[in-house]
């Protein structure tokens, strides 16, 4: 075996190890009942009261998605500390279809409008209705809880519920999006349990 062959073999091994090592990073995750876990690479921490699947492929730079039955049927999204000037979700077409950004002056009462404009722009939909918005404690501080309904690009009517709070100018939010028929009501209790367990560490 010459030196070149050994070097090539070593390189191949290193490359394989690197590839194998990266596999868990791109796979879906599993969040076990009772174990506190930080979400969206942020201080936002939740303790699930049942097992959840964590979806790989973050919907946004500071967002993380969980599901029970698959993202089409129910999706919980955590937004961890969105700063002024940042969008909620990843911008697929930054030039042609930029998403709305959080602004420094934004009031808690306007957070539903931010989520609404983000969904409308991202999915090119027109049907979105805010059903309810009321004050509710979230992360141990004054927050907002709101409910909404929209028809997604797949023409399936969905319902959503969100809890949000502004802490030191950063937006923390959790949302549940699920088909209005059957799935929303089925998953809502598990989502609300997640929200109740949420803290900032």
């Amino acid at each position: 075996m010459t030196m070149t062959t050994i070097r090539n073999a070593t390189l191949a091994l290193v490359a394989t190890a690197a590839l194998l090592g990266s596999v868990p990073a791109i796979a879906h995750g599993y969040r076990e009942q009772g174990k506190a876990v930080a979400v969206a690479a942020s201080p936002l921490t939740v303790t699930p009261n049942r097992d959840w699947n964590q979806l790989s492929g973050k919907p946004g730079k500071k967002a993380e998605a969980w599901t029970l039955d698959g993202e089409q049927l129910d999706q919980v999204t955590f937004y961890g500390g969105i700063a002024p000037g940042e969008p909620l979700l990843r911008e697929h077409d930054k030039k042609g279809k930029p998403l709305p950004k959080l602004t420094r002056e934004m009031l808690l009462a306007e957070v539903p409008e931010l989520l609404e404009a983000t969904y409308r722009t991202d999915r090119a939909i027109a049907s979105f209705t805010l059903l309810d918005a009321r004050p509710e404690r979230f992360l141990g501080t004054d927050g907002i809880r709101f409910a909404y309904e929209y028809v997604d690009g797949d023409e399936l009517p969905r319902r959503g519920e969100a809890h949000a709070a502004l802490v030191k100018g950063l937006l923390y939010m959790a949302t549940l999006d699920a088909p209005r028929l059957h799935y929303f009501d089925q998953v809502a209790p598990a989502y609300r349990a997640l929200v109740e367990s949420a803290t900032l560490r």
Partner: protein
Amino acid sequence: MIRRLAALLAALATTPALASTTAPAPLPPPYTAAYQPQGVDEIGLWKEMDEDERVLASSPILIRDEALNAYVRGVLCATVGAARCKAARIYILRTPLFNASMAPNGTMRVFSGLLLRVRSEAELGAVLGHEFGHFEQRHSLAAFKARRSGTDILSWGAVLAGMLPYAQGAYNFQTMQISVYGRLARFSRDQERDADLHGIGYLNGSTLRPQSAAMAWRNVMTEAERAAAARGQAHPRFDRVPYLASHPCDAERAETMAALAIPDGVGRDDGAARYAAALAPWLPQFLDDQIKLNNFGASDYLIGMLGEHGATASLWVARGDLYRARGYPRDLVSAAEFYANAIALDATLPGAQRGLGLSLLKTGRRTEGIEALRRYLQLEPTAPDAAMIGMLIATAGPGQ
């Protein structure tokens, strides 16, 4: 296969360049109603479209308002004539995009974003006539056959290239791929030119002003310019055709449409007043759907265009919402002014009071802001966000 390949190559080589014509578009020929699909390809295509239509008919974003549907159908009939318009079934969808389409089986989809953007019956007729041209010329079938032949050629090319004993084969195959896809895109562009020709032909034969078609495209270009300008982007180019573009460039279309319109038609009515009256009940919602799309330049342009003959209270509210959503400090000051303008015209609009209140709060004018929010809750005590705004009033009091 070889025969089909030769036929396709011959067809591609002789694709007519319709854009070069400058004579007015001919009037449409007599029409045979109740056409039935012929051959396996067309029958199959229609079956698929029939299934799609079944789903479409129960779509949750379908606008079922009888008056609006009857009106849009009336505009199509006025454009293409009573005999032709019987072939179309119109579905108006709440989608905030400038588009319409017509499937081979006669299903016509009209997006609310189109209704928001056109300003007259003639402009709407131009777009609907264009789609009807695709339908009457059975373009979907021709495009399907062209795609199938093209991909057949590529499949055989890949097999043959793989059998060659030298690397040049793969290179030649890549060249062939680029050529076939480029030809398919050009085929699509020529179909669009053909549909434009027919669309203007229908208008020439109608009582509507055919010159309005070019106007609709010029407005679309201006909107794109304003959108880019507001984002600080380079001026968009309307005179270039990318290699794989499915449509001719907008500048070419506007020019061609202007040339295809019969000169005598310029004195005809474009139906702008009737259009405005028919759209009035829906306009605030369509405009709201547009404003929430985070496209400041385009939305601002559309509001300006709608307010050409005097801004209404709901247009002022729309402009206020647009500026408040962008949310620079200067925008908030402007937004407060726009809401105030709306209130001066109509003090009973809850949206104007809410927007005014929030804008004033954010610019430090708390006392006035809270007064406006109180008026909002008086006007709409059951508003979905009444509890949240109530809390805002309680906590954002003076001195806090």
